[in-house]
């Protein structure tokens, strides 16, 4: 299982003019779902090449949630999670974030490096080598998504190098939440499910374009 959440802003009370941002209708939903589908698919293909195993992807599920509830999807606001952030610049500006629970990160490392890594630790402690590997996984997933998005909308978008943080879910989510907070209080979650043979691995991707970039994305995709 490999759920992905691509979060984009949308308004709550109808008090925001449409040109301000995100008047979400079923077409927008479908478009965002499709971006999630393609981006996740490419990311998983890249990942499966690296781990040398087949990875299956399921149809994405779209959820609209209050931003304050997003942490619940990661196991609660105080849940220790790993966030890998990739900055986006070019025609689209913003941030892309890949999130996993610590337990999931362990599983990913086992898939990637094998169960008997010398010096490997249990629980919430990670070696520098393990954090580097996780950063690279996050980088692959985030960059694949950014590439897919750029290709789909025909814009030039450059990912930054990846940055990693291991902390409480809420603290890490405050970074994309702040980006959304400028325009909206709710977020669109696109959940994509993946399954590597026998192994259930869950990750979450959050796209937080700035206000202008969100409009560019929607316009490029033909949404009013």
């Amino acid at each position: 299982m490999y759920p992905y959440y691509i979060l984009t802003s949308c308004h709550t009370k109808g008090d925001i003019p449409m040109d301000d941002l995100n008047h979400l209708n079923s077409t927008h939903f479908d478009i965002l779902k499709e971006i999630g589908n393609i981006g996740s698919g490419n990311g998983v293909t890249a990942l499966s090449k690296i781990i040398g195993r087949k990875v299956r992807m399921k149809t994405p599920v779209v959820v609209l949630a209050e931003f304050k509830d997003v942490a619940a999807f990661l196991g609660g606001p105080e849940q220790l999670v790993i966030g890998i952030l990739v900055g986006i610049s070019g025609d689209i500006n913003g941030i892309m974030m890949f999130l996993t629970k610590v337990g999931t990160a362990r599983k990913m490392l086992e898939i990637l490096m094998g169960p008997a890594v010398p010096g490997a630790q249990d629980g919430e402690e990670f070696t520098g080598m393990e954090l580097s590997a996780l950063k690279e996984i996050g980088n692959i997933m985030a960059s694949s998504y950014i590439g897919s998005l750029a290709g789909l909308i025909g814009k030039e978008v450059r990912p930054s190098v990846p940055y990693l943080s291991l902390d409480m879910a809420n603290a890490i989510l405050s970074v994309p939440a702040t980006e959304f907070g400028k325009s909206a209080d709710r977020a669109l979650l696109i959940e994509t499910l993946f399954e590597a043979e026998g192994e259930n691995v869950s990750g979450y991707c959050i796209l937080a374009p700035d206000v202008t970039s969100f409009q560019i994305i929607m316009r490029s995709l033909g949404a009013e």
Partner: protein
Amino acid sequence: MSRDMIVVGMADLNVAASPGILTTIGLGSCVGIALYDGANKIAGLAHVMLPDSSQIKNNANAAKFADTAIVKLLSDMLRAGARREHIKAKLAGGAQMFAFNSSNEAMRIGDRNVESTRKILAELRIPVVAADTGATYGRTVELYAEDGRFVIKTVGRGGMTL
């Protein structure tokens, strides 16, 4: 969570009288603004996300912005029986969660939140008596209305009481 714990969410604020406890979980770049009237034992806690409501169109939620949240929190506390001259402030949060290039506006938000909070408190003549801000890690805070103590917890980086 122990007795009478009132959870303040992201972009949210609340007020409690003794023996109430206000808490907000996982402050990252956001700032936890704790106001306390020790004479009347009235506490107020805000979890603000952004420095300035005037720069944002979607600014209906006063608790989201440092400028409007402090004003609202203050007025809620006065209504709950606090006296303005007794109110003192403690701050926590405003971290930079990722070591991202600081020239990126979005990534400097923690610093800007703290700067804005301090500026507004100074304008309102509310003294900041203690603060644990900045750095690169998340903080969970608890504000005790009985004595105004502000307990800060982190993951793997210890804690402190202000």
